[in-house]
Structure formats: C-alpha cells, structure tokens
C-alpha cells in the first residue's frame, strides 16, 4: 500500500466512515440509468441526416468530406488526391496504410502503380523487434499521407475513433502531413456519449491506446488566432463508404 493511498484514507476518515471498500466501489463505478442499454446501429433512414451533420461540422473544422457511392469510386478519388499533393518534408512520395480490409478494398497499390508514389501497408506481426520498429518508424516519417479507417464516426462533432492494435500504427494518423480516413457509414453513431457506450460495451477488451480525432491539428496560441496544421496532420480527408 502506497503512502499516498494511506494518506487519502486518513484524509477521508476511512474506515471510520463505515462503508467497506467494495460498497464504495459499487457506488463509484455504478452506471447511470439508460447507460447500459445497448447502443445499436443507427437506423439507415437516419443516415442522410447524420451525414449532413458531419458535413456541417467538418466545414468548421477544415475537414474535407467525400461521399462515395462505391469502393471503386473511393479508390479512384483517393488515388487522384495522392497524385495531386506534394510532400511537405523531403521529395519522395509514399503513402502508409493501415492493414485493414476496408482499405485493401480500394486497390490503391494497383491504382498508383504507374506513378512515383509508393504505397505501403502496416506490417502485421506477432511481435516487432527493435530493427523492425525502427524500419516502420522510418517508413511513417517518410510518408506524406497516412490512410486509416475508423472504428466509429461520431456525427455530432464529425469525430473519428481510432483504436490501437495489430496492423494499425498509432503514428499513421499523426506523423504524415495528410491524414485520410476511410469509413463505412454503418460505423456512424450520433454522439460522443454513444461512442463511449460502445466502448464500454466491449468490457475489458479495450486496447492500450485509443484516440478520438476531430479534424486536422490546429492551434490558437498566437493571439488566440486559429491556425490549422500545428504538429499533427495539416490536411484531413474523410471518405464515406456505403
């Protein structure tokens, strides 16, 4: 038992307070009414309204939304986007993609085969040794575009939720200057609260790292003036798939 915990108990007059630790744990970790009810998928009929909401929010955020009718269209638009951008750092053009069926379905590698742009995918391995990690790091730092999907998309604020895990580098949505997220509309939830409920429903299965992302990085530290492109991506695109 640490000194600090002892000091806390003394300050709170525990155990003189009477309630056992378990009882207090039950109180403090209790869920509110309506929280535990399963937050199911939003009805298909509500999707157009929620997508409109995402577009409105995205406008304030400098986040560009592309609604695609098919993976085919999405792949073509994404390839065109990659071709139209120059790298911010260095000269070589490289795209780093999460290893994910949604992204593999776009066929980016084939679409960009005839260009100077190389397409790489996060390696999936049981474990990474020092050299492999250093190599991956170099690859991400050398990429001008990072392509991820998102586990959930919150309509209320146009927020992506990215869970860490195998085949998903944390740095892919962070270090490249352009972040592209490809998200099937079935992953849309209404609110931040609904997103947290979905996470809660996973119980103990939460990864070591989870990130909610809302637009490209920004700062207002000089005279409270808003500037996009602080230390994270300066440009961000959201491709919505059916």
């Amino acid at each position, binding site marked *: 038992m640490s000194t600090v915990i002892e000091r806390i108990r003394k300050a709170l007059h525990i155990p003189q307070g009477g309630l056992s630790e378990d009882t207090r744990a039950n109180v403090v970790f209790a869920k509110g009414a309506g929280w535990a009810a399963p937050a199911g998928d939003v009805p298909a009929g509500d999707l157009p309204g929620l997508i409109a909401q995402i577009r409105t929010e995205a406008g304030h955020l400098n986040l560009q939304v592309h609604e695609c009718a098919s993976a085919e269209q999405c792949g073509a638009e994404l390839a065109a986007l990659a071709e139209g951008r120059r790298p911010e750092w260095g000269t070589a053009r490289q795209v780093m993609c999460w290893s994910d069926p949604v992204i593999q379905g776009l066929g980016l590698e084939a679409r960009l085969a005839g260009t100077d742009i190389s397409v790489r995918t996060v390696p999936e391995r049981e474990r990474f040794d020092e050299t492999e990690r250093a190599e991956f790091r170099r690859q991400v730092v050398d990429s001008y575009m990072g392509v991820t999907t998102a586990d959930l998309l919150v309509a209320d604020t146009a927020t992506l939720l990215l869970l*860490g895990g195998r085949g998903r580098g944390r740095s892919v949505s962070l270090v490249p200057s352009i972040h592209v997220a490809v998200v099937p509309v079935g992953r849309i939830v209404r609110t931040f*609260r609904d997103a947290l409920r979905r996470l809660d429903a996973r119980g103990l299965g939460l990864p070591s790292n989870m990130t909610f992302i809302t637009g490209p990085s920004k700062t*207002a530290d*000089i*005279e409270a003036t808003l500037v996009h492109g602080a230390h994270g991506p300066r440009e961000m695109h959201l491709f919505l798939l059916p």
Partner: protein
Amino acid sequence: MNSPEDYRSSAGKAAADTRLHSALAKMRDKVGRNALNLYTQVDAQADPRLKAKDVRRKVVNNLDVVLTSLAAKITGRGGHVHFAPTDLDAVEYCLGVARRHGVRRVVKGKSMLSEEIGLNAAFEAAGIETVETDLGEYIVQLKGETPSHIIAPAIHYSREQVGELFAEKLGEPYTSDPPTLTAMARKALREKMLTAEMGVSGGNTACAETGHVTIVSNEGNIRMSSTMPRVHVVLLGIEKVAATLEDHDVLLRMLTRAAAGQKISTYVSYVGGPRLEDEPDGPEEFHLVLVDNGRTRILGDPDFREVLHCIRCGCCLNVCPVYLKIGGHSYGTPYCGPIGAVFTPLTRGVNECHHLCQGETLCGACKQVCPVDNDLPRMLSLLRAKLADGDPRWNVRPQSRGTKAAFAAWAWIMSRRPALDLLLRLGRAVQRLLPKPSGWIRRLPGPLSGWTRGRDFPPLAKESFTERWARTRGRKA
C-alpha cells in the same frame, strides 16, 4: 514564488499595461463570455455544471478506491504506476526513469503539474535537453519565461513579439503572420519530437474502470510526445481522475467548452500502457506518476475539499476582473487567477501567499462560469478569515493584531448607537479639513490612509438617517 511586495509591484505595472489587457480580453471574449451558452449544449434542461460537480465529488470522496483501480489496470497492461507524496519525489522518479534509459532529450506536452514540481529545471540541471512542444509553451520557453495562462501560456505576447523571438532564436526571417510562425515552430519541433528518447505529458483526467489517462489537445504535440519517444511519462495530480467512461461523457464535454469554447478538442487520447507486442509503434515503457504534493492535506479538510474538484480548464481566469487586469505573471505561481488564489495558499502556505487570496475581489464571476460549479469565492473568504483569526490546523498565524483590534473596536462601536453618533460627529469635524476634489475624499489621514491608497472615500452626510428621522418623523423635510 512572488513575495507580496513583488505581487504588488508587478500587478501595479500590469494594471497600466493596455496591450496586456487587450490580449487577455481575447480570451475573455472568445471563451469566457461564451462558456455559459456552450454548457447549455451539453444539457439544456438540467444544469450540466451540477452534473459535472457530482461526478467530481463522487470521485474525490472515494479517491482511494478509484486510484487503486486505475493503478491495477495500468499495471496489468505492463505500465508502471508511481505514487509521489511530494514534488521532490515526483521529480526524482522522472529523473530516475530518464537516467535508466540514458535519455538526452525530453519532449514535453503542456503540463501545469510539471511547472508545479519544477521538472524542467531538474532535467536541465541533469544535462537533459527539455523541449516544450505546445506552441504557447514553446514560445514562453524560448523567451525564458513561465506560462501566464493555464490554457493559453503565451497569450500575453503579440504576434510581432513572437515574430521577433523566432527571428532571434530560430534564425527565421521576421514575420508577424500567425500561420507562418506556426509553420516555423512545426518544422523546428518536428525534428525534436521525432528524436527525443522520452516524452512527458500531463493528463486532463483518467478513467479508473478502463485504466486509461485521458489527454486532450489540439496541436497533436501530445500525441507526438506519447507515441514517438521510447518512454512516455504522464504526470497526474491524484485528484484528476474519473471513475467511468460514462463520467467522461459529461466531464470532457464540459472541459473542452470551458477551456477553449470547443465542442470537442482535435485529439482526445486514451493512453493506458506501453505498446503491445503486436503493435508496430508506441512507447516501449509507460509510467504514470500520481502526485500528491499537498493535495491529501486539502482532502482532509471538508471546507476546502471542493477545490480538488477543479479540472484545470482555466475558464475562471477568462472572467476574473483581477486576472484580466494584472495577467498571470503577477501571481508568480504556476496556477494563477482565482483557482490559483485558492490552491496555491493551501499548498504553499496561507501566510506566505496571503496576497493571492486577498488580491481577488469576491465578485463571484469565477463560480458562475466554473464547469464544476466550484465555489471559489467561498473558499477565498474562508482563507481570509483564517488570516484574520489564525488556524493552527493550517499553521496560519493571525496576519495583523492591529487590524484585528481595529475591527473589534469597530464592532463595539457599531453595536452601540451613542458611540456611533459620537464617532460620526467627530468624523464630520475632521473631514471639513480634508480636500474633496469632485466631492470625494482623496486621502484619509493617519492609519486610515491605506484605505484610500487605491480608492476614494465618500464623505459622511451632514445628517445621519436616524438624526433626520428624529427631526422630521418621515414628513418631507
């Protein structure tokens, strides 16, 4: 820390600095004024501040249970958790981690707690380059200063001053264009963030049931500092925890609105341990340092426990008539404004910091905008009462026997009508001799002169209400 004399002189200077006032007015207008409207987005029916307060109270009253769970979950994922009783212990622990890894460069996300424990100075003394990566903190660090606002550390600088600073320190061509200046910092700091062996950040809250520290940021510097270096260390005050994800719903939505007028910040990161084996990136080692440094003492006093509900959004600064005139540096402590005026005396000595709690106006604006409805004016009054009467429990000595005696005499006179009438007659006789430009007394004589150092005094009326009533019995005179 500033002495009372330093406080008086720097506040005096700042009170005449109109450029500072217009800089601070930006935070007031963009964030402070909107806060209450934005809260209604969270819940239009019930006051969400009260809900957030409940969430905070529940946790603070069961802090041992919550912290034990948080620590167990993080340890379970392979993270290290250290409870630091004091600032020195926390610093020593961080230095130990840095030494074990042979760290030569540390990149930091914004952390007021690191200012509280003096981490940067200790790292620098140990020969470890320490780089602040939040743009505002970076500006302040290049200038060799400390932050002047909890959320906007460099708010006291104009764009021209930042331009001159970058021209001098980064060798960049002068510009006063914020996007260009931001791009310069982006370039300079990217290299630092990609090469540092250790990242240090604060935390905005934590989730005890899932075992994650929660960090909000807009710039992405905190994600960089927590992702790219081999070691990530989080400094967290023991009180800044939440129990459940459900608690995060209301807390985070209130925090980003109160701090920056945003519905949500660009990044909300949940960090709960080192990289797992099958992850290609992320830190090899993760340390959570939970810092007490005087907080358990506050916890033990039910009168002040409420101050531990604070989520450090900085909103009270943006509406405080004192802060908006004297700026953050006058306070001379990491936490400035109304929250600092309560928290600092409680952690660094009430007598030593008497000027902080006595410098505020008790106008109540800070309580009105506080996202967790913290009653700072009540606690400021209570601190002042302790200064008047003394309190062995907090080792407070009565500040002035003379003042105390004067107020006792005043109370004696006020409760005895003949004595008051005598005093009024005496006062009217004396005030005839005092100059009264524009009808107000500019300077009171003798020991009363302190009262008129900063304000005028209204002269006594020719006739008191009681005298007038006795003469007229309510008829028109």
